């Protein structure tokens, strides 16, 4: 977790692709400008392979201690996609880069390692993914439910769009009748 010098967006991408070559499947850089002076905020979207997940996270932490904003999840039919939204290089004016790392998990075996040993603040996001998408997180320190009540049936995952979704629990909602 050394400070080091501040890298530009392209150098950050190179820092990862040099180390991990084929494990990084796809990289997209998007730059948004705002205001009269048109200052730029860069966004990096990286798609990585599940097997190198923990090493890539460790590599990120050597750059700058990031802030994990949230972990979002998508149900794409055969796979579940988890996206980790990090941001690094905060602390100085207009230096921040936003890094979104997305991992695909097959539905037959939706398991991934925890990052709570590097960052204890990820606990709430990981607990939420366990109960809403049915992802199993290996090594999580606290396995209890977070938002759903304890009486909620097992095996029903509210964010999924397949047969384990919550269709049987709808009652009288006019959106359901549409």
């Amino acid at each position, binding site marked *: 977790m050394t400070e080091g010098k501040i890298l530009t967006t392209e150098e950050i991408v190179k820092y990862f692709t040099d180390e991990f070559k084929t494990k990084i499947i796809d990289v997209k850089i*998007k730059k*948004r*400008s*705002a*205001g*009269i*002076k048109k*200052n*730029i*905020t860069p*966004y990096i*979207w990286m798609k990585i392979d599940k097997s190198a997940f923990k090493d890539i996270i460790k590599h990120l932490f050597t750059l700058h*201690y990031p*802030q*994990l*904003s*949230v972990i*979002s*999840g*998508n149900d794409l039919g055969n796979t579940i996609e988890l*996206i980790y*939204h990090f*941001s690094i290089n*905060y*602390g*100085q*004016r*207009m*230096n*921040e880069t*936003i890094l*979104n790392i997305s991992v695909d998990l097959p539905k037959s075996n939706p398991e991934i390692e925890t990052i709570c040993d590097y*960052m*204890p*603040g*990820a*606990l*709430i996001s990981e607990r*939420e993914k366990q109960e*809403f998408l049915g992802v199993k997180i290996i090594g999580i320190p606290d396995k209890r*439910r*977070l*938002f*759903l*009540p304890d*009486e*909620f049936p097992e095996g029903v995952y*509210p*964010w999924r769009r397949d047969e384990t979704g*919550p269709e049987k*629990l*709808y009652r009288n909602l006019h*959106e359901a009748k*549409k």
Partner: protein
Amino acid sequence: MSKATITKNNYQIPIGPVHPALKEPVFFEFELDGERIVDVNLKLGHVHRGIEWASRKRNPVQILYLAERICGICSYCHPIAFSLAVESAADIQVPERAEYLRVIHGEIERICSHILWAGVAAHEIGFDTVLYLSWQIREKTLDLTEFLTGNRVTKGITMIGGVRRDITPDMIPKIQETLKYLKDNFEKIRHIFLDDKTVKMRTKVCGILTKEDALKLCAVGPLARSSGVKKDVRVDSSYFAYGDLDIDYITPDILTGEINGDVYDRIIVRLLEIKQSIDLIEQCLDKLPAGPIVAEPKIPKLLAQLKKVNGEGVGRHEAPRGEVIHYVKLDGINEAPFSWKVRAPTYNNILPWIPMLKGQQIADIPIVAASTDPCMSCTNRVGIVKDGNMYEMNKEQLHKLSIEKTRRLML
């Protein structure tokens, strides 16, 4: 009662979802040793409303109003973060005048929220007259909001690609009159909060959050800044017109020269942010450029354009409580987005409660919890509400304990 062995055990007190100390429902379980807290355990989920699921059958313009009703105090920052995410996914360029207007509305909301918090914090200590004084000042700001947007709370001023209403030159005298009133009364509030002996006795060395804990637990907003971590989305990244304005991080050492991370520091940070907001609004009014206020004024055309977009976007904004982030994925087939994830700032500020409350007395729970400015309505929105929750009504006199401690310290 067997007299064979007398062991010293810790008590466990549940403070259930509905209780007088906190304004919104959250379940705590404290393990106590006498009056000191040893461990904290908490449960959320009492205000789930299924908002993210309700967005699956609505188009983006309807979702703006759904997002507004996530929370009453943060009713501007959720639609604006959603709009930033959609604009990022669809590559819409917002006109410059709209960006300056968005800053003005965001800062007015920040002033209202921080003054409300100041009143609530004073009420938790037992200082009710300060509650009435600060909320009287807030009434003038709410009148200004009603004049500019049409309503006091659910503003409805955001549109994807800009804002809905313009600020014409005849509205500007009223804005300046309200800012002058705020500047005159700011000194009154500052004097009461920061110089009063009672407030200092109750809040110094209470509820401390160290810098390492704030970094590791991903605290955001004034909670992180009062512990010395410099995180502020308005300064770190350039969105709206913040890149053109003169703005810096607010940490407690600007006023006192040292950083302790206790409740007193959080009061300092929030009061200084009110002053910073007044200054930012004045800068914006000076530099307001001319031009259109929305990128695409015809809404059916905007909806048709968004229907064809296939992409994902992230929108971040600095709400009064911290960083709000929305993630939107549009799939190019339906009008409704494929997925929408909302993360309100209180979500990240819940884990720091545990190191802050360990070692404190019970009577300090209301002021420490209120100092993080929790907004539970923002935190619980996911999933489907199912009847069957059992609420615990208990007669915890937490608030009364807090007032009695103040009286004890004063004599």
